[in-house]
């Protein structure tokens, strides 16, 4: 009995030593070298490291495109097994951006009301990050460019309500031709506009392939 008590005492001592060690070694932000912190949020960094486009203003976009929503949940749909079908429907060689899609399912209470997907595309003057809101029926609810490096005149054309607003109602099977199905843009904005149109169409096709069932029927999982 005495022996067992001594052992328990020893064990408690070891745990106490470990606790003291943890307390002494845990980080103290004030001791770090004072440098400018230029990093983005942890979530944004993780997405960028994984090659995915971050979602930079979740609350703003959610309220903008789905005003009645109360929250969202994320799901990563891997499409590597559907590459042949994806390539056939996109009609172009696949890129690293086409391997997976992170779906932010928008909820009103516990009920899904739509989805928001972000995507990086190769603009003329730098990366362009787009946000596409899609309804339960697979139609575009709205679009926004959350990051771009284009000159002011090009940026104004690409962000104009008339141009981005033309995305509304489009589906994965719609035609996305610039100048016909979508209004034309100035020549300087043409290549970036083409990249955005391809990005939007790609998102819809990937959503359709990643989720053949309507978004509302999906199980609520992270």
């Amino acid at each position, binding site marked *: 009995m005495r022996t067992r008590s001594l052992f328990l005492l020893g064990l408690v001592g*070891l745990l106490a030593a470990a606790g003291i060690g943890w307390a002494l070694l845990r980080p103290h932000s004030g001791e770090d070298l004072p*440098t*400018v912190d*230029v990093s983005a*949020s942890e979530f944004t960094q993780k997405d960028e490291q994984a090659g995915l486009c971050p979602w930079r203003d979740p609350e703003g976009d959610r309220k903008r495109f789905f005003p009645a929503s109360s929250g969202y949940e994320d799901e990563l749909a891997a499409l590597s097994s559907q590459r042949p079908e994806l390539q056939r429907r996109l009609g172009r060689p696949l890129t690293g951006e086409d391997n997976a899609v992170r779906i932010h399912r928008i909820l009103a209470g516990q009920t899904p009301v739509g989805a928001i997907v972000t995507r*990086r595309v*190769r603009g003329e003057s*730098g990366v362009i990050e787009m946000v596409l809101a899609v309804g339960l029926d697979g139609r575009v609810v709205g679009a926004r460019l959350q990051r771009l490096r*284009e*000159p002011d005149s090009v940026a104004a054309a690409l962000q104009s309500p008339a141009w981005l607003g033309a995305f509304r109602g489009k589906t994965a099977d719609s035609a996305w031709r610039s100048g016909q199905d979508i209004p034309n843009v100035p020549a300087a904005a043409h290549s970036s506009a083409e990249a955005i149109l391809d990005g939007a169409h790609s998102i819809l096709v990937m959503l359709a392939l990643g989720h053949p069932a309507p978004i509302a029927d999906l199980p609520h999982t992270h």
Partner: protein
Amino acid sequence: MFILAYHNLVRRRLRTGLTLLGVAAAVGVLACLLAFGQGYQRGLGQELNGMGIQMMLVPLGCPYDAAARVLKGRTLDASLPESAVNLARRDSAVACAAPMLMAALPRPSEGRTDLWVGIDEAIRPLKPWWRLKAGSQWFSDANSVILGAEAAATEMRQVGDTLYSPETGRRFRVCGILERSGTSDDSLFFVPLATAQAMFHQPGRLTAVAIRLKDPTLGEEAATRLQQTPGAQVVTLAEMLGTFLNLVGAVRTLVLAIAILALAISALSVFNTMLSSVLERTGELGILRAIGASRGQVFRLLAVESMALTTLGSAAGLALAVVAGRLVEQAIKAYVPLAPTESMLTLTGGVALQCFIVGIGVGLVAGFYPAWQASRLPPAQALRAE
């Protein structure tokens, strides 16, 4: 004797197991600590030497903060006159001096900041790890930009593409992309020095002058001379290395204290185990003595048990250090300034031997008294107790 010792240890498996665990934990912590100390010093030394920069001229202020910012590719508030480069180049001990102008363009709505660095050809000998990707070339005109690997990936740029800076209204052609180096250079945008000075309205100003010496042993004399540069101060990398090692030394002392505490607790645990074992086996030891075992043989039996406990515990502790060491390293790296990108955990044969000897030493010390007491038991008294 070894078989007898083995049977005695397995007779109380839980007790033996807990004692082993205690010794293993203590030896594991000690091994990680020693391996980390050696690895950090070696890694930091290699990293700083590999930089090619042996000294820096930075604006007046906290020299270590300034040097750390420059090394990490971050901006400084103050600046130096461009004449500081010529003063440095004229010094007889300086092999090459390279001007640098760093500026940050925050993009809060996008959660990132573009870091632009103005450089000229003189920087190349000071960045020996730079490798340009195929098709890349050095600046051909004022509107050329060389991108770090991470910056190029983030902006989806390739050699020949256009890169626009909306904040300054400048359009660049990507003339080169650096191979990934694991340094802060990966996320920077490099432009010609004059371009950077024009972009950020800093004509004739610099944020640092990076210097390499002809002979590193002349560093102190050169530092004294360069210290006379108006508005500037000198930071040698030896000083930085010393400062960082001092910081790490303080942490190391704390961890060493914990390791010693853990070792002391494990020694007490072994002592307790062996003493309990002697008390429980008084009669058995008496019989051993009665059938002819000498005091020395009884002493050796208990000593072997104690040594076996700590030897096995030490071996388990070293195995633990190898397996869990990487996790410990990741945790420690978060608290260490300018942590080397390479592994900081160097579990060499020497370190393992040191820990093994300490572990066995703990067994010897902790097992001595119980073994001595067992050897002193008079056979008749021991048998009476039974």
